[in-house]
């Protein structure tokens, strides 16, 4: 019965401990709605056939409802609506109250990505790994505008606000992968701000966590203690690639030449870009940096001014790394045109 109704109503799988309870109430509510609207519909139909107009001069008696009729009209819906409310609110309170034994994960949302940080140190982008069968509490905040954390299979949703923490919790009943969707409109990339919850078997989760912890410790060990140590972060291009992923640049800019929300980064360096006002600029380091800090200053023709400013969000060395990464993205097209000014060999490839 549960499975039949769930499929009829197109509800997703019931992958959390409260999904099934919520769906039970859902069925009850939908069935009462159907019964009520059918009853009203059939009564109308019956009256319409029974009392159709028989002559143009027909008159009708004056009828007023009795007090008990009006009482029924008020009482019946009141009873059902209150029943819905109390059943629903009991469940709502349960959903709003995370159990004390839950493990915590910090969630940071921003245009247009999810970042997850575990108190033990590891963090992840767009992928939330949790142990199945354990209570997980999410402590969420946003870096820019309001987002909303939504996992349909878990029947949970919670807005993620800038400037404060909100929380929600769940318990994934079995291992599996479930899509995270952003449910509060947040701009051009709203519909692609998706992530994934991966519920692992508890042992696998422990393994993953300790693996991550080891990696973290190893990285800390190799971090420079003096100037003669080479940084373990890789060269600037590699750093730039990672920063571009972390900051969400690649949500709008492609690196393979296809058109997306923002101009592609492939062959961007020293490209002659036509702006909206018709002027042509050279995409040099200064322009690239300006576009990160004040994106609306010079909009390339054919694109919308939707990029958020990264002023104060990424530091100088990170900007440098991003610029270097963009420079590295060159296809092997032979360039024609005037000399590109001072000789500066862009780094090609890795």
């Amino acid at each position, binding site marked *: 019965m549960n499975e039949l109704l769930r499929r009829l109503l197109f*509800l*997703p799988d019931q992958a959390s401990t409260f999904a099934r309870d*919520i769906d039970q*109430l*859902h069925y009850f*509510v939908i069935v*009462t709605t159907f019964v*009520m*609207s059918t009853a*009203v*519909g059939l009564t*109308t139909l019956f*009256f*319409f056939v029974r*009392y*159709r107009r*028989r002559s*143009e001069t*027909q*008159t*009708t*008696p*004056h*009828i007023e*409802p009795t007090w008990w*009729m*009006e009482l029924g*009209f008020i009482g019946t*819906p*009141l009873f059902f*609506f209150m029943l819905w*409310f109390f059943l629903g609110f009991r*469940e*709502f309170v349960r*959903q*709003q109250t995370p159990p004390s034994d839950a493990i915590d994960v910090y969630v940071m949302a921003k245009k247009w990505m999810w970042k997850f940080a575990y108190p033990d140190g590891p963090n992840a982008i767009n992928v939330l790994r949790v142990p199945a069968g354990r209570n997980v509490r999410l402590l969420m905040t946003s870096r*820019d*505008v*309001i987002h909303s954390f*939504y996992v*349909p299979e878990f*029947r949970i*949703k*919670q807005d993620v606000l*800038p*400037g*404060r923490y909100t929380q929600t919790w769940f318990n994934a009943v079995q291992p599996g992968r479930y*899509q995270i*969707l*952003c*449910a*509060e*409109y947040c*701009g*051009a990339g*709203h*519909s692609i701000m998706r992530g994934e919850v991966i519920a692992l078997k508890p042992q696998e989760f422990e393994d993953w966590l300790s693996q991550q912890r080891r990696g973290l410790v190893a990285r800390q060990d190799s971090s420079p203690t003096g100037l003669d140590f080479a940084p373990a972060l890789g060269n600037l291009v590699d750093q730039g690639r990672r920063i571009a992923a972390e900051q969400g640049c690649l949500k709008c800019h492609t690196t393979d030449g296809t058109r997306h929300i923002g101009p592609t980064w492939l062959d961007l360096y020293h490209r002659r870009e036509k702006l909206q006002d018709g002027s042509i600029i050279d995409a040099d380091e200064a322009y690239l940096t300006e576009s990160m800090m004040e994106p609306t200053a010079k909009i390339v023709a054919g694109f*919308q*001014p*939707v990029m958020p400013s990264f002023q104060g969000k990424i530091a100088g060395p990170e900007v440098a790394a991003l610029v270097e990464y963009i420079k590295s993205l060159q296809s092997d097209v032979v360039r024609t045109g005037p000399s590109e000014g001072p000789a500066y060999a862009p780094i090609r490839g890795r």
Partner: protein
Amino acid sequence: MRLSEADSARLAGALPQAPTYLQDGTTVLSWLNTRDHKRVGVMFLASVIFFFFIGGIFALALRMKLLQPGPYLIDAVSYNRLFTLHGVVMIFLFLIPSIPSAFGNFVLPLMIGARDVAFPRLNLASFYLYLAGAAITIWGMLQGGADTGWTFYTPYSSTTPTQVLPILLGVFVVGFSSILTGLNFIVTVHTLRAPGMTWMRIPLFVWGIYATSIIQILATPVLGITVLIVAVERFAGFGMFDPARGGDPVLFQHMFWFYSHPAVYIMILPAMGVISETVSAFSRKNTFGYKAIAMSSLGIAFVGFFTWGHHMFVAGQSTFNAGAFGILSMFVGVFTAIKVFNWVGTMYRGAIAFKTPFAYICGFLYFIVFGGMTGVALATTSLDIHWHDTYFVVAHFHFIMVGASVMGFLAALHYWFPKMFGKTYPEGWGLVAASLIILGFNATFIPQFLLGNYGMPRRYYQYPEHFQALHVASTAGGTLLGFGFLIILIYLTIALIWGQRSESNPWGSKGFEWLSASPPPTHNFDELPTITQMPHDYRTHEPPGVLHVA
């Protein structure tokens, strides 16, 4: 009220019959400079229908894009602008002024036996404010338009680089038109009722408009304040809602919904009033439970002010608040249910004629019951968590706002078309269009309920592929719906120009608006009627011609 000299002369038979309001001056200037509530109503009617089609074109463009899960036809930012403009145009330029400003203006003074509204100049000013607001909004659209959604949620709306300011300003100005019209109606109902029209003899449409007007003058200023603060935040960096400047984004949602939830009742209460009138007229039966229907309008207007928090169950308000707003929202459902039962009761032992307006009444009853009960389901806190900001919500409010409100609007348009223009429309085409619309509407929005259950968030440009089948079904229904509206536009335009002359009271209705000739003369009545009975008393047969109730 003292009769004018011309009226007295006409009564004495010294002058010929007064020309209808349509014949009294035919220059463009005589329309633009009119103080006649009927002409203002007709100008509002033409404007709201124009904006309805603009908003409808936006909707069809959105539906076309949604045929494909990936990027298709338009880019993400254009999509976001389109749904914003669809919402803004449909809500502020169509739904809110639709029935009150167009039909309310036309029939309210006729129904209470007045020669005009209390402040005719203010009435015209309201129309020009509406036009000014609409012009600013259109200018904003041509500048590129906003991409915030019609809800303007901060801090997105205070930081997005699109043209939010002109749209906010347009909404602000249109709000004043709404306030002035509401004020005008309240004063008119209090001061200009015909002799003998006690409060318990006022037609139910007037009760609906009266309740609406209360909401308009109490809630709209809050919207004005809110959009003004957002505007100041945008151009002066005022930190009220943006947390980066020390503001609180949830405060915006409280202020916004304090207006925008009652605004839903601004859109639906007048439609309920239309149904109360038409269900009696076409069942040829007195209104079952007149007092219950009248009082439930006031009840909805009152309780509607205390339910706004049900838009924010997952927005970060306290659990206690969620419970309080949840339980208060249930009462709106109860008041609506009282009306529905009484409308059905009105048909009992009536003499029902299945004309085009009656088809819309049936559609309305179905949409209000299903749309209303899914609304109560959404106010059930735990269920809302899954449904919030998904297509389930979209489907629910379209059931109420398009389903019910537009059915009310169309019922009114067909019922009062002979009253307003003295012409008849082709009944057959009317029924064809009505069935197309009701069918197309279901085909559009039932799949959206299922999409919401399935977990499809609203305002998504791209969507996971398993949602596609339902989206295609919805677009197919939308096309049907568009066709239906187009047919109405065509046959009503033809009827308006070449239609047959209609009788003065073609429905044999005993609603008080038929006390005047159709179309009415400029000053409505040669002699003010004296009301001695309730509206819609069908114990005696009404011969064709102008209604008499003395």
